[in-house]
């Protein structure tokens, strides 16, 4: 009999699936490894989900119309400029499926969100990775003339951000699609949404997983020009977003202040944690996101620190990847959670 792997296209057989951060079962660990929000979502969201749960036998709105309208109003764009996804991951995948043919280039600077590689491989793209520090867009990225370029800002895992004028200059000269991944945008000082109108080739993606405390729900938004979003709708699964996610998304945007107050708390903790880590001798970047990148080279590297924290019941993210082995990424939890981590690292 033919082996199943012989059935699969060579493209898929050669792919490495994305490795997500561990989701431990049971609640004893302090989980600082997947950049979730430690604070709960708005009570309005909980109420909206509970209300909508009584209509679960019915298919959702195919394009999540209510959320498109709400997001359009909140972010100052037309509803037709909004695409709603099953997490922003799905939106990134949809953009590649819609725009990239076999062998065409997808580019981004590294280190960055490792899913880009998986997604690009899955559409058979030619991947161009350019090493960069994440505070600017390297000229090699412009020279790559890729069909799609990902600009992750604030970037993961470093927390660095690219200044808006650099994003604008890059998009102005780019021929292909420029995807500005703002999964952590609410924790940063600026957003490319403010320059979207000037760039027909720009798409800005946003997530409800981080600032809105809704990672388990799977909800993201992409903003672009209406005709481009209209084309992407064609590659969307017919009902890609659940009823609960649509209702929750509307409620979350209704209670925008709730999100902002959680973001303010996370930022305050971020400042405090950064200072304490620096005082303890760690190299820590100024982060624009809800996590910090901690240089652990002087204390045996990222793996050693990961293991030490893990033994103490604190889960952070270690990347076994070139250029990242010296450090580890810690999500910003509550002050109490961070004190446990700091206690281990300062000791």
């Amino acid at each position: 009999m033919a082996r199943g792997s012989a059935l699969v296209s060579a493209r898929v057989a050669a792919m490495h699936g994305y490795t997500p951060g561990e989701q431990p079962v049971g609640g004893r660990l302090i989980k600082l490894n997947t950049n979730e929000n430690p604070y709960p979502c708005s009570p309005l969201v909980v109420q909206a989900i509970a209300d909508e749960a009584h209509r679960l036998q019915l298919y959702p709105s195919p394009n999540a119309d209510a959320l498109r309208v709400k997001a359009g109003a909140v972010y100052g764009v037309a509803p037709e400029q909004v695409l709603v996804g099953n997490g922003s991951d799905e939106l990134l995948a949809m953009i590649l499926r819609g725009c990239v043919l076999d062998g065409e280039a997808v580019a981004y600077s590294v280190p960055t969100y490792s899913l880009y590689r998986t997604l690009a491989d899955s559409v058979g793209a030619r991947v161009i990775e350019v090493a960069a520090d994440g505070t600017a867009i390297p000229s090699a990225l412009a020279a790559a003339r890729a069909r799609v370029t990902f600009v992750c800002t604030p970037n993961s895992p470093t927390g660095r951000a690219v200044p808006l004028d650099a994003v604008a200059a890059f998009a102005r000269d780019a021929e292909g699609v420029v995807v500005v991944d703002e999964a952590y945008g609410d924790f940063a000082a600026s957003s490319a949404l403010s320059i979207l109108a000037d760039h027909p080739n720009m798409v800005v993606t946003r997530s409800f997983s981080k600032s809105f405390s809704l990672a388990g729900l799977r909800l993201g938004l992409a903003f672009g020009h209406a005709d481009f979003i209209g084309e992407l709708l064609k590659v969307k699964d017919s009902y890609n977003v659940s009823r609960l996610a649509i209702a929750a998304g509307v409620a979350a945007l209704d209670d925008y202040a709730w999100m902002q107050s959680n973001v303010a708390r996370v930022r305050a903790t971020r400042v405090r944690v950064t200072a304490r880590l620096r005082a303890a001798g760690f190299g820590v970047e100024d982060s624009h996101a809800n996590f910090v990148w901690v240089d652990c080279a002087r204390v045996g590297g990222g793996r050693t620190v990961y293991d030490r924290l893990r033994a103490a019941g604190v889960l952070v993210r270690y990347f076994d990847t070139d250029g990242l082995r010296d450090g580890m990424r810690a999500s910003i939890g509550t002050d109490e959670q961070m004190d446990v981590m700091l206690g281990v690292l300062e000791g």
Partner: protein
Amino acid sequence: MAGPRIPERIRSLQPYKPGRPIEEVERELGIHGSIKVASNENPLGPSPRALEALLRALPGIHRYPDGGAVVLAEKLAARLGVEPARIVFGNGSNEILELSCRLFAGPGDEVLFSSDAFLVYPLVSIAAGATPVKAPPRGFEHDLEAIAARLTPRTRVVFLANPNNPTGTIFRRREWERFLALVPEDVCVVLDEAYCEYVEDPEYPCGIDFLDRHPGLVVARTFSKIYGLAGLRIGYGVGSAAVMDGLARLRQPFNVSLLAQVAAAAALDDDAHMEASRQRVRASRRRWSEACAELGLDFVPSHANFVLVEVGSGKTVTEALLQLGVIVRPMDAYGFTEHVRITFGTEAEDERAIAALKVVVSEMHG
């Protein structure tokens, strides 16, 4: 400044026109109190256990779900009698259909299905860059021989729906076994069993029993129909571990929400709800046969939770029913211009739809 270039195959795609939610239709028409018997949903709703589990999980919603849906996979695997590694969950079974097609077919490849089959098959084929190939049906049924006759060396995927949507017909074990023997081992057969739980025919072949006969078999199932969770988006594929591994690489790492996972797991435990849902459909099937006979309308005997009724002009009747607050689905997109598809409802919904159809039919003839 030029906008981004979209490949021609995407630009020319006609997106699937899904049934719209009742809220949208009512808003547009300025009506309310209508009933929707158009999208093959379960009128009884989901199991109360599913809702309870979902509400209980809400405090954990700020965390990512388990990307591998391990708890649910183990539970479902035990029910189905397969290894958990042979199951992959999708954001609806729609996603399983799409991923299976993308996994195996690309430009230059052919994807084969019956011309009366679910409209998502041609769409996912075209989106993957492959060439859709249609085989003619036999009456209102898939003609597996005609499908097999169209296999070529370029065929990578065959989609079969059993029961089929929108006809509600099935193919039986003998025909299926003969077909499977004709399909080369390196061709993926996606057996779409979205409505399998409603089938009561003793000769109905359960796809899962055939996994070891064909290494490229993917059985696609859903929680949208009998489990009453269409709004939540969760379905699954069952196949060889190698093929499932391929699907898992293509899917998003967190494609199924936390709430969908816990609700589906709880729904699996509620046998009474499943039985009640079957009972309801059985009663509706009987009632609609009587009603069609009484109205002198031909219909296609259905093994699923809906019925295809020949009404003359599907479009006219759909619009007339809408004016009476009954939402059904016209079928011209499937080439059935003379039919409407009516989903089985609660007893009250059935009666209201039948009464409305009576009015419309007598007006047309009067």
